[in-house]
């Protein structure tokens, strides 16, 4: 099996690896780098548990090859909290009970990160639309929506305070 050298930035850290052509990005992250916070729920980009940020946009890492991420800047769930402080999105999911089993949560949080970056003050319809690629089987979504509203409020407050 042919291998390819790749060079990328993951959670702010440079990374050089050699990957098989067919190695999926999610397996590269989980199995080679040990970043197991990104989960696999369907291997077909339908459930969103594997969502990460790649070059500033949310993508499903289960349907990208690792070699396609050569040169990319990636952020996974492990890169969101800074200096032990949870990101407002993580805080929102905790405060508003945006999770139960926690399996879809990293993907939900990354999709939320993408949404709030592009639309800092989404209404409920926009939030639900933005989550369309992420399945949650535990919560019924209502409190995920509230978590995102909490995060949006907090992040906007922080921006104003700056």
């Amino acid at each position, binding site marked *: 099996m042919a291998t390819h050298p790749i060079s990328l930035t993951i959670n702010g850290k440079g990374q050089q690896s050699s990957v098989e052509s067919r190695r999926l990005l999610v397996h590269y992250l989980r199995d080679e780098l040990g970043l197991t916070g990104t989960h696999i729920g369907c291997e077909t980009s339908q459930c969103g548990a594997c969502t990460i940020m790649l070059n500033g946009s949310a993508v499903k890492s289960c349907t990208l090859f690792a070699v396609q991420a050569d040169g990319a800047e990636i952020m996974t769930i492990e890169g969101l909290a800074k200096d032990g402080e949870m990101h407002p999105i993580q805080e929102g999911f905790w405060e508003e009970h945006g999770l139960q089993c926690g399996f879809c949560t990293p993907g939900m949080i990354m999709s939320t990160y993408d949404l709030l970056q592009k639309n800092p003050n989404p209404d409920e319809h926009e939030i*639900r639309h933005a989550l369309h690629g992420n399945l949650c089987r535990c919560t019924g979504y209502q409190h995920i929506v509230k978590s995102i509203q909490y995060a949006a409020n907090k992040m906007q407050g922080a921006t104003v305070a700056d």
Partner: protein
Amino acid sequence: MTDTATHPFIGQSVPRGGDRRLLVGAGRFVDDVRLPGTAHAAFVRSPHAHAAIRGIDCAAARAHPGVLGVWTGVEIGALLRPQVVEGGELLPGRTIRRWPLATDRVRFVGDAVAVVVAEDAYTARDAAALVAVEYQPLRAVVEPEAARAPDAPILHDDWPDNVAFRWETVVGEPDRRFAGAMRIVEVQLVNNRIQAAFIETRAVLASPQPGTDELTVWASTQVPHTVRGGIAAALDLPEAQVRVIAPDIGGAFGTKGGVYPEYLLIPALARSLDRPVKWLETRGESFQATNHARDQRQRIRAAVAPDGTVEALEFAVVANLGAYGANTVPLSTGRMATGPYRVRDIRVGVTGVMTNTTPTGAYRGAGRPEAAYALERLMDAIARELDLDPFEVRRRNALPPDAFPYDAPTGVRPDSGEYGRALDEAIRLIDYAGFRREQAATRAAGRLLGLGVALYCEFAGPGWDSAQVRAQPDGTVTVAVGVSPHGQGTETAFAQIAADTLGITPAQIVVRAGDTALTPQGIGTFGSRNTAIGGSAVLLAAREVAAKARRIAAALLEAAEEDIVLEGGAYGPRGVPDRRVTFAQIARAAHRMGGVPGGLPPGLEATNHFTPEGRTFPFGVHVAIVEIDPATGELMVRRYLAVDDCGVRINPRLIADQVRGGLAQGFGQALQEQIAYDADGQLLTGSFLDYAVPRAGQLPNFELGHTVTPSPFNPLGVKGIGESGTTGAPPALVNAALDALAPLGVRALDMPLTAERIWRAMQE
């Protein structure tokens, strides 16, 4: 129990503990457990619904670089014993023998025929594709009706037909009452086949401990102790040498509550290879090989008096068990046949039939939602035929509060219920009169607005469970429990119960669950049994610890033991508030090397097992308001109200989480989910593209109300709550749709209520 002076934490929405690791990507699900030298398994599964295995050629797979072993059904016979289902309610002489790999015949699409173990998961899948199986396809039966036809192919050897069991109970004189009935109302229903579709598929990692016979198994399961027992029996190992760990679990919903064949085979392969072996189910595999649920054909009819009172009930259920399914779920449907209602003249029959489909098993409600759906569809049919109000029909038939504990004719024993109060609360919160006015006005304008109600009653978990409460010398406490919560937040509720009993705070308590080496033997988490049974065990164990704490406090304070009270988080003699010791001081004293005060034995811990007097029977009233597009048949949910009664409420936010999550799944069954097969038994819904789990934009915000009717069957007074949503939502939603469609004369409608299905009903 909700007096905040003596119970500062019970009844409060204490924040969920333990979420931080899940939020920062540090959760530990089975695939996150990394052991050096782990090999990976991949299964070869049948593409045929029914076929004889003529031969399996594993040579190419075995020769593939990186492959450690390939096994067929015949070969694993040397490694473990098959799972056998016999006796119980099965008809005499009918035994279901299931090997983890099929030996001579496959019975559903997804039945495993071989397993490959390789150095890595990619190689295992490559090699699995090289296994050549020669099948001779046989005629398949998909529907129970077809499976009972005289010329149907028979699934299990030595059976005269495909009927696994028949259960019938006749109480009173149903035939006489039907013969003399003023009116007979009948409904025929299909309860659609669905699947739990947890986002984390099944997963297992087995690791033999080098140089010993010990085996550690990480399994995505709700019942680690049961899985340990299953592995020990199948592999002929002492249970004490098997440790099963249920780490973080990515959803389970009852469908990870059994011992799957793969959970026995992977440990056997790990022992055979003497190295860790991991298996992660793919999503496609999960749709094929993880148990499905529901799938009943129901005929329910009532002899009805002019005032809407049901005088006799007949309920006939035919359950599709799939190729190897168990009978417990449909039997629960039979046992809940009278639900919250008074009728005592009944004939209930349940028949379980084997078909060439994925086995059916437990899923959130497990038989009770099927009963509630039939009963509540019947109640609405009665209301419609007699031109009565649907709330009123239910009120007239409901058991009165003084009937409890009630010995139902089916043999179950509801513990307590105030159904009228729940109906009143639902009517108030939904503004029932206001809705009927709006409906009348909008009907005139051609809009199809409808309201549906469901009064459900179900039963929560059976059996005993265990807890060990142990104080550390610094006064922090570990609570180890036999139930195995996995996302419900029950650990937080348990900490609240122990904190109030011991006079400490939940933050000083660590709850351990899901590891047979760290917890007392338990039964597990299913059937909404965590808090009523596990929580009561925590309460009893904590009470024992508190009693010893009082004795130590008396010795420390030189006071009489019977005078010691726990007040404001400290122990001391009644009425002398300046003489107090904290639980931490007591714990320190309990572990003094030089001796415990008063010559008491050292240590401050207790293990307790709680056996309830009976099951608890949660109930509630759900109301849906829907509007149907007259042009397309598309259904929109305008409002959804759930008034649930789970007895005493330990943590209201955790309860609300359970209700909303259950509702999401109930909405799924009612509105969009359907496991589909074609006539040859090919699975048509093999991915999330075809199987429509609700997405964020497809669900409304749910409105919640509650009543509180304590259970007399446990010292906390709590009932289960986890299954209210899947039980209440399907009948409430379908009844709402039928109410909306009433001007068009639509009476028959089966789930899921897709736009196409509704549109077709509107055209007929």
